[in-house]
């Protein structure tokens, strides 16, 4: 019976890994990258950026990437790709890219992990991760106590 009490005391930290990949054909984009409102990167993104940290899976996780400084050109591209997000080794991006929100000046679709326009791309897991996953992988009812 201690099993359950001990489990309740655990913080459930797990790795969260995010990879951002820039495309710099027409200049280097500026990236502001925040996790749970805390800045992790703020500057020109000229090469791949990797975020790797242990976060509690019991708390919401908020990921936000703002791209600015893109000059639009039909022949050369500048962009940032959210190449991958994994939580506890479970792929979130690109698998759940339809859950992303992308407010951008070209009104490109939110269902993407490709930032081709200046704007803010965000992904919010607004409940404990495994509860979020339950809802988003069609696991059916979730009873509330």
């Amino acid at each position, binding site marked *: *019976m201690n*099993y*359950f*009490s001990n*489990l*309740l005391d*655990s913080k*459930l930290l*797990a790795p969260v890994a995010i990879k951002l990949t820039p495309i710099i054909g027409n200049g280097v984009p500026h990236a502001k990258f925040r996790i749970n409102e805390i800045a992790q990167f703020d500057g020109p993104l000229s090469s791949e950026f990797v975020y790797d940290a242990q976060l509690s*899976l*019991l708390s919401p996780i908020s990921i936000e990437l703002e791209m600015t400084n893109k000059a639009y050109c039909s022949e050369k591209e500048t962009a940032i790709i959210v190449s991958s997000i994994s939580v*506890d080794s479970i792929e979130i991006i690109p698998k759940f890219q339809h859950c992303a929100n992308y407010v951008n000046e070209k009104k490109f679709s939110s269902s993407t992990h490709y930032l081709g326009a200046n704007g803010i791309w965000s992904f919010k897991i607004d409940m*404990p*991760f*495994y*509860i979020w996953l*339950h809802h988003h992988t*069609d*696991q*059916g*009812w*979730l*009873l*509330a*106590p």
Partner: protein
Amino acid sequence: MSIEKYFCPSPWFHAGIKTSGEYHFCRWVSYNKDIVQRKDPTINEISAIDFFQTTMAEIRLAQVTGNPFPLCKGCYEMEEHGKVSGRQKQLLKIGVDTNNFEKTLRSSPWLPIIVNSIKNNGLLGLTPQDWQVDLGNFCNSACVFCTPKFSSKIATEFKKLAIATETQPAPWCTSDVNVNSFITSLKACKNIQYLHFLGGEPTIIPAFKKILKELVVCGLATSITLGFATNCTIWDEELNTILKGFKGVHLNLSIESLEPINDYVRYPSSIVTVTDIINKWINISKDNKDWLVQIRITPTVLSISKIISLFEFSYQSGVAIEASNFIQEPAFMRPSVLPTEYRIKIIKDLQEWIESKPVTEDNTLVVNTRSPAQAQTQILQDAASYVNYLVNSRDESFRLTELVAYIKKIESNRKNSILDYLPEYELLFKSAGL
């Protein structure tokens, strides 16, 4: 000791009432004769809420020991053969995935509730959200694997044939006092999500409609998903109207095969009538959001060789098929009564059928068997669980003589013959005394 292997959260949100009016703690309880059964209070003795909050305390404490609980044997057996068990389904309802047990349990909003109830000797202040309501044995079918407990038609036949002469007690729901008491308990439950009724044949049991109508009138129905099984011999437009008052309907259509063997096994139904009504239910479900129709089979020694037609129908129509628990009683009806040499062809045919379907990349067991999007995968997995069962279950062919003795008795009344439906078993049955 293994919490992961044996813990089930069901007693924290589920309870039921048996035909006799005795409460019970789980719809998947194993009624295997080898297992000592509980004797719980009845609806005349305490309220359903009291039973759940207080009497079930010892069940909750038994679940957290990490040891197998004998009455949960049915679920353990299902898991052994790769079949989704009641335990897995109930775990999923609180967000727990058995493939990632500890982390998903830690994440579940129910963990603090479980811990708190353990500290309080299993007592719980919540009310059930999931009910199993047994309405008695009033039934117009006499399925060959059924018992007097679940079919009044079988009860009458067994008395006539002196197979079983005890009179079944009057179901609790034949008393208006009991029905009203139960409805009062339902109204006192906060947040009922699911109400599942079992017969007999619920559609012809007066208390079924009475309870449903009352739930519609008092407004509770709009937040309840209603579940029940039907033998697909009755079509009742008034009932359909009442059902539309519920938030959702989960309907299990009981059939064993699309082949003539169904007429023998689910006597005295006709496969023509049954398939017509099945199609009616499928059509009506398409017009109603939050209605889910599934095929529910109970494979037995007599029907296991004829289930592929039904699996194929389900696969093509997208109507999920789910076999009930591996049948426990009567023991001579179990598919494991088939000798090994008779299983070989069935195993081969089932495997070939499974392999004829597109391979899915993700082989994770589909536990949410109510997801239309996963119906085809779930159908294949259910079929595979029967392959596993036939390959691995022990040979119980020593029960054949008991099976044949039973068949002879009921056929003397029904004037039919199993050999008209399973001529390929003639040698087998004759060697057992047919």
